[in-house]
């Protein structure tokens, strides 16, 4: 112990909780989030161009952009899956109890200034609704998009089969449908970022990585000692 003032203050029987600015989203997590966001926007925009919804991109350009962005996103996801499992962050996405209070909060409580029913912590960054949403994004909508996208991309390798015509039709259907669902997801996701303490609080958090988290003294001491997670100096005056 180098700082005995902390060690001396901890009373395990009566834990005190302190609000500290902790980097809850690591550098990689933020890189993943924002590059994924950029790629998904690029894919959606160029995809709508390919679909014929808008004519802002020449078809050839749209194919190039869409393909390059898709390959980049697949690489990013492969890498992120690896990251999620090696860091144990995948547990963040597991189903949590208490989804109804969260739904109730967004439907009603938020209008009446009720406090958010979910307490963010280092181990529980996401509330139950978020976890469910991201999980379904990662196991349903995402795979529906990338699997059909990869199949679509490799069309030239199977186009000679007699069933290719039908297969391409189904592939296109699922890809398009999943893209629409993804779009709805993104709209809601972006809207939800405005529901924090201020309209830009969550966005700022996602940019800087820091959020104010309630830590127990033990946690605070542990982080301070081990520096496992960056933490800003305490604002509390001694």
């Amino acid at each position: 112990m180098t700082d005995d003032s902390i060690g001396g203050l901890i009373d395990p029987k009566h834990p005190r909780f302190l609000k500290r600015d902790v980097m809850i989203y690591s550098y990689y997590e933020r890189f993943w989030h924002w590059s994924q966001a950029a790629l998904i926007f690029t894919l959606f925009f160029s995809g709508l161009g390919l679909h014929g919804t808008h004519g802002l991109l020449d078809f050839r350009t749209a194919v190039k952009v869409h393909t390059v962005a898709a390959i980049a996103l697949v690489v990013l996801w492969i890498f992120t899956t690896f990251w999620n499992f090696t860091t144990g962050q995948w547990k963040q996405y597991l189903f949590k109890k208490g989804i109804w209070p969260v739904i109730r909060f967004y439907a009603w409580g938020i209008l009446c200034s009720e406090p958010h029913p979910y307490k963010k912590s280092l181990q529980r960054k996401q509330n139950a609704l978020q976890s469910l949403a991201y999980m379904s994004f990662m196991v349903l909508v995402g795979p529906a998009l990338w699997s059909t996208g990869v199949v679509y991309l490799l069309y030239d390798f199977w186009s000679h089969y007699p069933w290719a015509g039908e297969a391409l039709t189904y592939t296109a259907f699922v890809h398009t449908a999943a893209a629409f669902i993804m779009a709805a997801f993104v709209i809601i996701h972006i809207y939800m970022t405005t529901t924090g303490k201020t309209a830009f609080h969550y966005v700022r958090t996602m940019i800087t990585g820091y959020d104010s988290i309630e830590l127990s003294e033990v946690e605070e001491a542990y982080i301070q000692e081990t520096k496992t997670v960056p933490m800003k100096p305490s604002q509390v005056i001694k």
Partner: protein
Amino acid sequence: MILHAWARRPVFAIAMAGLFLCASGTGPVRAGELQGEAGTAEAAKAPPPAPRPSNSTADHSKFEALRGPFANGSEVTKACLTCHNEAGHQFQKSVHWTWEYKNEKTGQTLGKRNLVNNFCTNARGNEGMCAMCHAGYNWTSANFDFSKQENIDCVVCHEQTGTYYKTPTTKGNAACSIMFEGLKPIDWPKVAQSVGRPERANCGTCHFNGGGGDGVKHGDLDSSLTNPPRELDVHMSKELNFACTKCHLSKKHIIAGSRYDMNAHDTEGTGKPGLRRDVATCESCHGTAPHPKNQLVGFKLNGHVAKVACQTCHIPALARGGVATIVDWDWREAGKTKDGAGFSEETYVQGNGEHRHTYRSIKGAFTYGETAPEKGRELLPYYAWFDGQMRYTTIDTAFDPSKQPVPINSFQGSYEDPKSRIWPFKRMHTVQPYDKGNNTFVYMHLWGEDKDAYWGNYDFGRAIEVGMKENSRPYSGQYGFVETYSYWPTTHMVAPKEKALACHECHAKNGRLAALAGFYMPGRDHFEWLDWAGYLLIAATFVGVILHAMLRGLALCYRKEQKHD
């Protein structure tokens, strides 16, 4: 007037100058020069290609046998055969000689000798005129002796002086024969000694003028290819200067690339060096993956090779060389006279400035098509899945006149069929006579000195009756007119790669392939209800979040007011 426009031959020049341009005193000129006078087309301005240096091991001008004198072409042929003693046997098996092609796959007997077309309708029975394009001499009637090798015309394909010409094998009506009179006699020894491998001008003598005039038939073969700029054809322009035989390879005088038996999807590619002499496909030189493999777009385009013929993208439009092609022919209009005589009208001015017939009493009314951007004209191909196998409505085939247009030739093909690809065609529409009682096409007796020839008496009834009788075809005695289509696969006039079709020409809602069904194409196809559902979902989500935001705002205001109280 009958005119087979002879692109590079004096007979053509004289006929054109004397009869159509109304100029007088014009001496023999080559087709390129004539176009230069008449028009402004790029093709006409391009300098003529330098004579190809001969790689031959023999100088034909030094052969004793070719010194002459020769009284006629047959004597030249006999001289050729004294050395080339297999050539006659070989050539007798060629369609250029037999005008007959037996398609083993369909069992149909085809060839000019048998088929009905939707231009002048039938060569059979009109050999006196049509056999001007037979690589032989003296085919005047159905009784031609195909076994006589001295009847072969070697020089039409091989001579290189440009002074050789052919005239109809029979005289025809006076009105027609006049344009072949007074021609400069052929210098047979000079012609015979000039022989070499066929050049574009040799093949073009007939193939540029199919259907009865320059560019009439194909839309991708006309006199502009004698000396084309790169913009018109990358292979035949002076940079590469391909002769037709560069792609249409021959083996024992049998030339590859007949439209009677096409390979719509060549999966073999280049093959081993020197081995492939039976194809004239793009793939036989360019391979089956011709675009850059290390680029995304190139990779994607190589994928298209499985489903899209090279021609579909690389020949962006038809008749681009300043010479128009006929797209519609109405035989019902034929036979009008002025003061008892036939007449013609030339109201169409094509890209290179030449006037073209829009009406001729002997043939009817013509509509032209061409791609001439400076005149605001564009002629796009007809696109279809094509498996390479043409089936013909022959003189024997009864058809259902309630289903018009009747296809002169038809084909199959689909997305599922690996032999098929999307091909461009020139589609020719014609209204032509048919046997109303038997529902078949008819052979018309058009050319002849007799009183029954249509090109003289303008009487369809008699021309058909005699045409059918002379060729032992049953005729009900009643004729009518039927609409027909013929389909001409497009394969020449390959544009520079930067002028190939852009992706969005097809990958668009109303693109060039809008009419092709049975497969999903990105950019063109949609699932209508899914689109509706999708856009609705996005709209509803937007509305939802906006409403939620408004409620939040209201609630905040409400709370603030409460606080103030």
